[in-house]
């Protein structure tokens, strides 16, 4: 097994940066919700319905994007911890029963 070196603090810092980006997406979602609150300003004109639908789609999309970026942040953080666990943990010297080496 070859050895490896990973700059785990860099991964941890990256996880935080990515988490902050999820926050930016959350801000965008809030801005879309704020815009949706102004739908009444369209005065019942046809475009008002399209505007409300657009705001709904935007909020849904931002929710999906935010969730995924948070997942990426969490997984990068997990990877950072995982590398440390690898360094400090017990590496199997042989395959467990039922698994091929």
């Amino acid at each position, binding site marked *: 097994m070859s050895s490896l070196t990973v700059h785990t603090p860099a991964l941890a810092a990256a996880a935080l940066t990515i988490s902050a980006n999820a926050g930016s997406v959350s801000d965008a979602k809030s801005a879309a919700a*704020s815009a949706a609150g102004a739908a009444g*300003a*369209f005065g019942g004109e046809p475009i008002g319905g399209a505007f409300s639908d*657009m705001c709904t789609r*935007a909020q849904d*999309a931002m929710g999906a994007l935010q969730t995924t970026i948070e*997942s990426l942040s969490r997984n990068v953080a997990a990877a950072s911890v995982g590398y440390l666990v690898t360094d400090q943990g017990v590496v199997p010297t042989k395959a467990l029963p039922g698994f091929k080496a």
Partner: protein
Amino acid sequence: MIPGGTGGGGTGSAPFPDPPKGDPAGITSAARSLGNAADDLENAEGGLHGANAELEADWQGYAANAYHSSSGTLAHVARGASETFRQCAHAVSGYAAALDHCQSEIKRLRHAWEQAKQRQAAADVLAVKLVNSITQATKPDDATRINTQVTTATGQASDAGTEADHYALRANHALTEFKQKASAYQSTLEGYSPGETPGPFGAPFTAPGTPGRTFGLPSAGFQLPGDAHSLDPYNGVIPVGDPWNSPIPGYGVYKDATTPEVEPVDDLTNLVLLVSTLGGSAAAEVGANALKALAEELGVGSVGRGAVGEAYDKAAQEVIDKAIASGEGRSSSFVKILQRARAAGDDGAIETEVAQHEARADLLDALMENADQAGVLKDGTKEIVTQLARNRWAYTSYTTARLDAVRSALLKSDNPAAKAAARIIGTILRYKQ
């Protein structure tokens, strides 16, 4: 719709349209919110690219490739969403402007139309009065004069009616033009370009990152490269499986990772080389390589930088160790754990850097003073470079010990450059005391 009057001469009967409803100021405010959302997403895109760049050298291998691929796609989606918000903000803003213009224009035309209609009605009334004023007792000359006035009044009523119709026509044109613009803006909000046929599932855009109806997300659902679960191997919750090829953190998947340390590019080593270059022949006598080696030995070059990194690693790892031992590592709060780790790491790094700061500055002062007295520096170089050093570099007890050791070694050498460096170190140590 306001019904037109019958009017004299059959004119002035064109209906005057109602203005479109809505509050342009409120709609403009909504457009600003959408613009803010676009800005937020641009920030997110930049942050994702930034995190990618920072990890480029610090994380390599299978897991890193998956990360870069996923992060790149997310940044692409954020860009597409930002552009969509920008397009929608532009459309809403444009609609507000068109609405404001249309409402103002129709209001102005309505006022003119009403005045024309009033003139038409007054002339009609006058004509009727004049006609009724002719009786059997009216003298023929007077009747002729009155009939002339009736003709004039009827003509004025007809002209006013024609004018009113003109205003009503212009108002209808303004409304039609507004509706055409509104239709185009509405198409933008619906995610379709004007005249574009919706694609499968009613959405013309399917590729991730494409601006449009789905805000950069693929219309068939949001999936990252590879497969829908390409991030899952790194979330720490899937079964162990084969420990030799497990994607779980801490097992085989990290075997392939390599992380070469990044070479520092802004440390004193480079600065010393710069000074040597600026200094010309006298500095060359000391020797650029000798200065560089000296700087590294003193802990002001890559060695010093490494010391800071080690302090960071040690402090961060201690916190993470504790978190793992307490069982926190098995929860989903990895980010919180690592936030504490980073804070601890920062403290360690700061402690080391602060201790080094003064020493590095003192060292450079001495080097620069020496070179300046030898007349080998260009005017202003010493002041500029030492000012930089005062703001960025430092000193430690470790450095002091290394200085003394290096000084002793250099004094044993017959090389003039080495002896010159030893003298500089002696100066530095005296400053230290």
